[in-house]
């Protein structure tokens, strides 16, 4: 899977959350681009990148319930009517679009009656409408609230949540999660120092056995359900 990550942030170097996410990027399959860092937008180049991607991630801090201006400028310049749908070819159709948004307020603020009084889905509605117009698939948003307050354990979890959001098959089911880990385990074991590889392989084998056992249980249950429906 090829994932294009478009980051909109006027002060990237000063953002601890954006630096953290950059360090957390998966090793392969990612085309990372900082929109504010470009002198001028090369429309052909951007449209080619979009055509080549399977998944497009828009990543930004929430400024006044919207993305920073650089993302709107990119949209208005790159997503021309003709490119998106004007000639009825829909080159972005069936690609996935996901938003990684950071907020300074806690998650509970983003609901009716909450401090912000608006849900993130409502705030991001214009982006969702563009996605629909392009016949793309909108992914459930990955919201990162109050990054600065996360403890070490929460940050460790965020690394993998973010990596999975960029590269894991949807929907985010247990089966999808198992497949994502199974695909990466051999590479992760190879990276281990020689004296740790046996332990890595042992853990992997237990994980694989549990995956197989679950498949078997699900099959058995499906069979029982099928029979009881007669």
């Amino acid at each position: 899977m090829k994932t294009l990550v478009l980051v909109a942030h006027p002060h990237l170097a000063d953002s601890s959350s954006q630096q953290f996410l950059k360090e957390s990027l998966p090793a392969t399959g990612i085309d990372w681009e900082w929109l504010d860092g470009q002198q001028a937008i090369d429309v052909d180049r951007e449209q080619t990148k979009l055509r080549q991607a399977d998944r497009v991630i828009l990543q930004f801090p929430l400024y006044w319930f919207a993305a920073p201006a650089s993302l709107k400028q990119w949209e208005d310049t790159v997503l021309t009517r003709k490119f998106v749908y004007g000639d009825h070819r829909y080159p972005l159709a069936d690609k996935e679009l996901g938003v990684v948004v950071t907020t300074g307020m806690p998650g509970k603020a983003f609901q009716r009656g909450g401090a912000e009084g608006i849900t993130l889905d409502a705030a991001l509605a214009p982006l969702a409408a563009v996605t629909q117009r392009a016949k793309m698939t909108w992914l459930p948003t990955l919201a990162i609230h109050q990054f600065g307050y996360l403890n070490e354990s929460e940050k460790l979890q965020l690394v993998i949540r973010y990596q999975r959001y960029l590269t894991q098959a949807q929907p985010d089911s247990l089966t999808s999660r198992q497949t994502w880990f199974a695909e990466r385990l051999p590479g992760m074991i190879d990276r281990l120092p020689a004296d740790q590889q046996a332990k890595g392989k042992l853990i992997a084998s237990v994980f694989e056995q549990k995956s197989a056992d679950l498949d078997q249980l699900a099959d058995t249950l499906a069979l029982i359900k099928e029979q009881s429906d007669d």
Partner: protein
Amino acid sequence: MTENAAWLNEQIDQLAQQQAKFTDRAFWLALKQLIAEQDRRADQLGGEVDGRTWSPDQW
């Protein structure tokens, strides 16, 4: 938590602690969480299989 699960968690924790890179440590710890999720799902599915197999409706 069963004895086996506790032992496996210990193995993963040890391996994770030995990783110098933050993202590598994150991977192994996330795998530990996924395995816990597998165990929960297996319990639930196993319970459902038992329940449906022993349903008086089916006698």
